[in-house]
């Protein structure tokens, strides 16, 4: 998705984003805006910077692979917001910004003399994304929050794992961060639209746990209406459809996922298994019957999958259009034709690391204005001088003074 697009034609060209957030959720919102043309200034503490620089697998450059990938396209500017002079420099940046992403605990910006009212007064068109574990309001607002806690509070950790067994991480510990980055980004884009109509900025109050909870389909209405408490389902999920789950193949450690959401899809699976009669109305043709006989149906599918290699299961399912897929590990993904054809993996040179780093490409994929990755995560403070000079018009003496005092 790195086809040449004139920068000025990208949807967010001309939009300046200040990303003063840490780790993933808030920064991911800024990252998406940057892929589509926004100028993203990562404002970091002069010592250490964003803790995401230490999150994940370290590289020889000192910061981690997670940082390199997720701080893509950003410029790093160091400012110490605990210092009055730092706050003054920051306010000047705010004057020239369209969007601010932050994820401090509620009250922190206020403590630094940067409450919303002040920011809004400095720049009435400013849009601020505020990401926290629990939101800016409510009894838990001051509690620290990470995505893992949000998965727990928002209800999906409880649902992950074997029935009655230890609840497991729902695949990845940072899902809730990405989700919140997405909802937050959507909020920012809607606020930009509203600003264009009215000139007025606003803030978006995004809580990690809320993004997680929003993605729980009918968990809430089913409890409210029928008192039904959903429990952990292990590898199969047969509340609504059957067969629907993970099945081992003949090969050790190679699994397939099968999802027969409708009767038609089950008929295709029955055909793939060479047993079309299973989908007859006298046997398991309708969802209701399959759900009532879920153990039998799952057993039939398990036996069939267990007798074949993964490739063979998939080949047969694909031949009849039955929905099945491999449980890919990252090695499988690197060898996968579809990932290559869609260019989901992009190699980026990191000059001062002397290595090529492979990262996930831009999503969403737009036909006229595809996003792009220009470079991976910057070194700490790499752009401090150029931004203070070019954007804020400060001279070398002023910058030298701030540096000496470790404000930047």
């Amino acid at each position: 998705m790195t086809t040449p697009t004139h920068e000025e034609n990208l949807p967010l060209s001309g939009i300046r984003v200040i990303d003063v957030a840490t780790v993933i959720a808030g920064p991911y919102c800024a990252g998406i805006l940057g892929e589509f043309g926004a100028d993203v200034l990562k404002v970091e503490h002069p010592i250490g910077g964003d803790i995401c620089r230490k999150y994940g697998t370290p590289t020889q450059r000192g910061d981690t692979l997670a940082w390199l990938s997720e701080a893509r396209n950003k410029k790093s500017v160091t400012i110490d917001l605990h210092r009055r002079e730092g706050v003054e420099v920051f306010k000047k940046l705010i004057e020239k910004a369209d969007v601010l992403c932050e994820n401090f605990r509620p009250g922190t910006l206020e403590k630094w003399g940067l409450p919303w009212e002040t920011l809004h007064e400095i720049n009435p068109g400013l849009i601020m994304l505020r990401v926290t574990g629990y939101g800016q309001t409510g009894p838990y607002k001051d509690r620290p929050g990470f995505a893992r806690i949000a998965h727990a509070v928002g209800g999906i950790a409880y649902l992950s794992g074997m029935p009655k067994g230890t609840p497991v991480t729902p695949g990845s510990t940072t899902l809730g961060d990405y989700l919140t980055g997405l909802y937050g980004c959507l909020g920012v884009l809607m606020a930009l639209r509203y600003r264009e109509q009215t000139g007025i900025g606003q803030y978006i109050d995004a809580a990690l746990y809320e993004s997680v909870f929003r993605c729980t389909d009918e968990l809430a209405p089913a409890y409210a209406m029928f008192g039904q408490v959903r429990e952990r389902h292990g590898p199969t999920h047969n509340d609504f459809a059957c067969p629907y789950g993970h099945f081992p193949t003949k090969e050790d450690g190679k699994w397939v996922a099968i999802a027969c959401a409708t009767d038609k899809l089950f008929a295709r699976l029955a055909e793939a298994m060479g047993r079309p009669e299973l989908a007859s109305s006298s046997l398991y043709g309708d969802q209701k019957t399959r759900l009532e006989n879920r153990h039998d149906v799952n057993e039939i599918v398990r036996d069939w999958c267990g007798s074949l290699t993964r490739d063979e299961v998939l080949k047969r399912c694909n031949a009849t259009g039955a929905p099945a897929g491999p449980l890919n590990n990252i090695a499988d993904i690197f060898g996968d034709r579809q990932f290559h054809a869609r260019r989901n993996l992009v190699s980026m040179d990191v000059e001062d690391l002397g290595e090529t780093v492979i990262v996930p490409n831009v999503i969403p994929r737009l036909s006229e204005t595809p996003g792009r990755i220009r470079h991976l995560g910057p070194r700490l403070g790499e752009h401090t001088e150029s931004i203070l000079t070019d954007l804020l018009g400060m001279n070398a003496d002023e910058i030298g003074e701030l540096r000496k005092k470790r404000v930047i």
Partner: protein
Amino acid sequence: MSDENIEANDGAPDFSDPPQTPPRSAPDAEPKLPMQGIRVLDLGTFLAGPHAASVLGEFGAELLKIEHPIAGDPMRRFGTPTKRHDATLAWLSEARNRKSVTIDLRQQEGVQLFLRLIEKSDVLIENFRPGTMEEWGLGWPRLREANPRLIYLQVSGYGQTGPYRRRSGFAHIAHAYGGLSYLAGFPGETPVVPGTVPLGDYFSSLYGAIGIMMALRHREKIGRGQVIDIAIYESVFRQLDEIAASYGLFGKVREREGSGSFVAVPHGHFRTQDDKWVAIACTTDKMFERLAEAMERPELASSALYGQQRKRLAARGEVNQIVIDWVGALPRAEVLERCLNCEVPVGKLNSIADIFEDEHFQARGNLVRLEEPGLGEVVIPGVVPTLSATPGRITNLGPALGNATYEIMRELLDLSAEEIKHLRQRKII
């Protein structure tokens, strides 16, 4: 869950003669919202794509759900059935804010009607298997000809290009194919469903909605629409932080991590004395220091012991055991209290029953209660994200099949009552 042609299922009840649309509220009864004036045609089924429409609708867009006149969206039958014969609870919640308009796209006259709607709309969302729209004569060139300003979101399991494009895909498959399911569960054991089955539908919808917002911005500059091509598996894969980079650089294949995480220790789920669960996430050294303090063993956070993440990762088993023992000796309320006093990131593993009792969910208005005729109160998740000047809203739950067909045909497409009757008789609408 994407894909699948609208199925004229023989067993499906006949909804072809729905009640008339109730009167609309006055347009100026609502404050101005960011998406006001944007009309979205949601031709998708289930959730991958439709959730994008939902969010836009919560913020003011007009949503027309286009459905097959007999079967409707299969989502109407997916989930827990209700007394309303055309709606599961999942449908009621996730088809919020829509009007239902029935059109049979397998009939030429249906296609013509649909193109007339396209002329009057801003956004089209669909999630058929790639090629289906073309079969109906509704490929992008035709849509663009009808409306050059149209923004077209296509969501599919594998995307519109590549060797697997024709394969059917649901989020459950995309979780597996995109690398998430492989990671859920204990090392060497059965991989489990990562929380819920439609997660990937929400992911792909959010990317889709972001794409739509960007395309709207571009359209304002250029005057032309464009296509957004979303694969569900890509939306899943994009969530996996540095998994690609670390395999690419170090050949490291991430495996299932049980209730923990490869990046930090202790970072997982712990059982309390009263057989409940808490999550603890010491993402940084500072957080661990606070936990050590909460455990009344501050020495654990000294540099000689486990003060640094590196050391804790190397001694993962021991560190986790210390936390397991401490948490296991106390009731959940006590663990929470001690951790919160020291500002340790901690949380209950809430079941839905816990959530309904939670004061914070209540204070934030995360559970929205709506009255549905014949069903009583339906409780659904509220709007996310929260905007300060233009908060979103939920005007109605998932509509009855075809509840707005008449209104839209009459008012938007200017058909006469007679014409509408004829279309209905032939089951085109």
